[in-house]
């Protein structure tokens, strides 16, 4: 265990990030759309919590350009993809999950190495991706792109201008 002072600092930090997550959930749950910038900030807080849990088992790289940050997306779309990646794949220091969040002109791309768990929790209803897909269809009449290769799982969210 770290020094009491450092430990306390860590706990404050953790609670701060948890409250960010809750504030965002309360603020935006009624919204149809949210700025990519805000969703990113929220996702970073969520990733902080996951990193505390998985430690070196979860490796994340985020690289989103300024232009894309100003666009919008349905709230919780990005977070849901992160949650899915962690839920379906092995996340352990021995076999880390590498998660990349990047962008190009057309898409926000969430990509992770594919190392599926042997068994899934009972509550896996596969509703996450379906929900995102339907919201993009209804709100923007756009299709999200899902790609599965032998080694990677990739979801592309259209950048909405």
């Amino acid at each position, binding site marked *: *265990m770290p020094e009491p002072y450092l430990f306390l600092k860590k706990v404050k930090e953790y609670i701060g990030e948890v409250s960010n997550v809750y504030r965002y959930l309360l603020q935006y749950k009624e919204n149809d759309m949210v700025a990519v910038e805000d969703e990113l900030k929220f996702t970073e807080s969520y990733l902080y919590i996951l990193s*505390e*849990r*998985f*430690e070196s*088992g979860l490796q994340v790289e985020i690289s989103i350009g300024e232009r894309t940050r100003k666009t919008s997306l349905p709230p919780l779309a990005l977070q849901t993809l992160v949650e899915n990646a962690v839920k379906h794949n*092995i*996340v*352990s*220091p*021995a*076999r880390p999950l590498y998660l990349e969040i990047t962008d190009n002109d057309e898409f926000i791309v969430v990509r992770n190495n594919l190392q599926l*768990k*042997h*068994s*899934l*929790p*009972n*509550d896996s209803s596969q509703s996450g991706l379906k929900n995102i897909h339907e919201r993009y269809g209804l709100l923007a009449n756009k299709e999200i792109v899902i790609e599965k290769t032998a080694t990677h799982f990739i979801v592309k969210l259209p950048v909405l201008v």
Partner: protein
Amino acid sequence: MINAVIIEDEPKAANELKDILEQIRKDIVIVKTMGSIEEASEWFQQNDPPDIIFSDIQLSDGLSFEIYKNIDLSSPIIFCTAFDEYTLKAFEANGISYLLKPMTPAKVEESLRKYDELKAAFSKRQPSANQLEALIRQLRPSYQTTLLINVRDKIMPVKAEDVAYLYYNNGVVSVYLFNQQQYFIQETMDDLESKLNPSTFFRVNRQYLIHRNSIQEIERYFSRKFIAKLFLKTPEPIIVSKIKATPFMNWIKESI
């Protein structure tokens, strides 16, 4: 000492449990902490089963039940999880307790108490080596090693191993010792036969109960009887009856 294994994929949770265990019990040794089905399956195949397993359910590569499904483990398991939806499955897999996270020392202590109780209850049915010995002693009849003989107004102990033979005649039982001495004894031949070790003494007929070491030779007699000749003189010849002939010969052959 209780050898324990922790199966938990989140390092912080594993440490937390380890801290709690070390804090509440001095007799627990955590021999291994593992985070995946793969790692645990391999470890259990190569190592002796621990006394107890603390197991999370959702591991990095799936549900821990897969470990217990594929490996025949006898160790009791205390499941530690944030979900209460797996209780039935936990019972199918040697689960003796189900701890819901977050863990507290009180909860862990409670489940360990259950472990102790179950252990005590089950070990009662397996008698200890001492208990078994006592039982064997009880079942094996013990024979008299000393006879008490009244000589006038005194009581004299005579070791059974010093008795060459016992002889019944006219309602009186005499004890003849290897050292040629002779005494009378109050007990009946039937009593003496049952009290003395049958591998040492044999009732060859109504009149004689003889010590194995007193026999010098055996002669054939008519109609499949024998005459036993002793190193000592006897008041009358010892005729081994037809019925006793075979058991007598078997008794002589058998080792003590």
